[in-house]
């Protein structure tokens, strides 16, 4: 009886999970999506607590309290730190799946109930879970800059990584064939943990949006595998929803960089340094904030292009002040969002929403690109490779073929940059040498602040 009640509750829970994601399609209904998700999760937990095999609730309660104590402060992080928080929670997800996998294996081992099918699902769960665990910890460390964000590479790295992964798979297959060889299980766990670390070592900061999405997918798939282990369809469904979400996001990110999964994972992109970047000293034109303010004031249509530099400088609130100053004068201000701007999918949108920029002003790359010839001023704030025209025509450039924002087609480009150091790919950005580009050197937050000061100073004189 109880089992049936639980199944019915799980069925309802599944429906709410699907609705939750469906309502995320639009900002208008998105909060309803969160409530549907909470309802679904609440139902899932309630249904599980009815499980007849549960002997004692003590440790479950302890874990709930502990989880809430850690979880609540984790939700207060500043929005610039959301990528590392996300990576950290992928790590928790992977850890949970992996630990449950270990526990199940040894329980069934003792009870003599290991079948090849069960072990097969367990192998998938444990490998996915632990690779996600250490891989996400590494990603979080790099994003938080506890670890160096630059790719770390060494000779035969890909060969070593792939052989390590292959060995883990072979160990898994031996276990499936002979489930009683219990000593192989910890070996497989160890190999997965190590592989997770090595997989993320060669990945640079700018590839994080793809990697985070991929790890999101793995966390979901490890829940699916757990579902196969426990013969639980709710786990399979919810895990599959999560897995497909991560998959779609990673595909979008890869397309936005014109690269393949293999290239992101094994390409060690940030290392292709200085190749072809001949130190040809070309002149850039720089301008003061006062000049910049005057140019902006004379415009009818301004497009602001934010990049990771805006997040690093925490400049989003100043950008909002600038937006206010310009709109007050009747200037049309829009924001051009490149899909891989920032360190995770949608990163710029969240930062600008936090700074109270209305979301209908945030325009996707494909919609805004045809408009650039009509744009009077394109203001680039801390974005670099996503606005490099070399991606369109320079076949020798490592970023050739990557879709970019066509800011160089605007009448005037103002680019805020700390120095002339090239971006993550180590490539010179020819945008900065273009005739219609003026550089505003300095910290993004200060420069935008100065622009606002000049604009508001002017306003008081009228």
């Amino acid at each position, binding site marked *: 009886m109880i089992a049936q009640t639980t199944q019915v509750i799980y069925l309802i829970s599944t429906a709410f999970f699907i609705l939750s994601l469906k309502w995320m399609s639009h900002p208008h209904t998105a909060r309803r999506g969160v409530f549907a998700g909470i309802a679904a999760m609440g139902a899932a937990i309630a249904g599980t607590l009815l499980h007849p095999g549960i002997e004692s609730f003590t440790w479950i309660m302890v874990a709930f309290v502990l*989880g809430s104590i850690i979880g609540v402060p984790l939700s207060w992080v500043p929005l610039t730190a959301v990528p590392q928080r996300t990576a950290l929670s992928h790590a*928790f997800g992977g*850890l949970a799946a992996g630990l449950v996998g270990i526990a199940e294996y040894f329980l069934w081992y003792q009870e003599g109930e290991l079948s090849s099918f069960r072990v097969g699902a367990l192998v998938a769960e444990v490998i996915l879970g632990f690779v996600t665990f250490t891989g996400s910890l590494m990603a979080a460390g790099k994003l938080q800059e506890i670890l160096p964000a630059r790719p770390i590479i060494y000779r035969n790295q890909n060969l070593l990584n792939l052989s390590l992964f292959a060995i883990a798979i072979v160990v898994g297959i031996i276990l499936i064939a002979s489930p009683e060889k219990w000593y192989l299980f910890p070996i497989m766990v160890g190999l997965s943990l190590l592989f997770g670390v090595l997989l993320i070592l060669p990945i640079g900061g700018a590839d994080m949006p793809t990697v985070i999405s991929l790890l999101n997918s793995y966390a979901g798939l490890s829940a699916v595998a757990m579902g196969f282990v426990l*013969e639980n369809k709710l786990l399979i469904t919810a895990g599959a929803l999560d897995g497909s*979400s*991560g998959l779609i996001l990673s595909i979008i990110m890869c397309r936005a960089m014109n690269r393949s999964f293999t290239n992101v994972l094994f390409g060690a992109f940030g290392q292709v340094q200085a190749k072809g970047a001949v130190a040809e000293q070309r002149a850039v034109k720089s301008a003061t904030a006062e000049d910049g303010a005057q140019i902006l004031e004379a415009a009818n249509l301004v497009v602001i292009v934010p990049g990771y530099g805006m997040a690093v400088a925490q400049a989003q609130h100043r950008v909002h002040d600038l937006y206010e100053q310009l709109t007050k004068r009747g200037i049309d201000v829009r924001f051009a969002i490149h899909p891989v701007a920032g360190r995770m999918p949608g990163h710029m949108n969240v930062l600008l929403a936090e700074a109270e920029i*209305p979301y209908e002003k945030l325009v996707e790359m494909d919609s805004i690109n045809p408009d650039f010839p009509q744009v009077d001023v394109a203001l680039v704030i801390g974005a670099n490779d996503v606005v490099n025209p070399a991606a369109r025509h320079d076949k020798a450039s490592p970023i050739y073929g990557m879709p970019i924002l066509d800011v160089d087609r605007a009448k005037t480009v103002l680019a805020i940059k700390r120095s002339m150091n090239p971006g993550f790919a180590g490539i010179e950005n020819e945008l900065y040498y273009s005739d219609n580009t003026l550089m505003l050197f300095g910290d993004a937050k200060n420069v935008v602040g100065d622009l606002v000061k000049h604009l508001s100073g002017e306003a008081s004189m009228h």
Partner: protein
Amino acid sequence: METLDFISMAFVFMLATFIGLEVIRNVSRLLHTPLMSLTNAISAIAVVGSIIIAGEQKTTFSTILGTIAVAASVTNIVSGFLITDRMLKMFKKKETRQ
């Protein structure tokens, strides 16, 4: 018997993946960051398996692992839903007040 179970679970997996791909494809790009923190919370559905292991208390070893797994999952559930809602509250249309 076991093969039949496997096939029916594989059906569920396949259908859920297709539903997931269709539903997620329609999510506005504006909301990709909140989407990811929401799916973070959803993938903490692993709490179901963790609760059973922690509650059955078959061995000390399994109870310890289960308890850690429940704590990790609950962390994701709590922080995932809270931060998603916090972010979504920020997405506003242009104010109509004037």
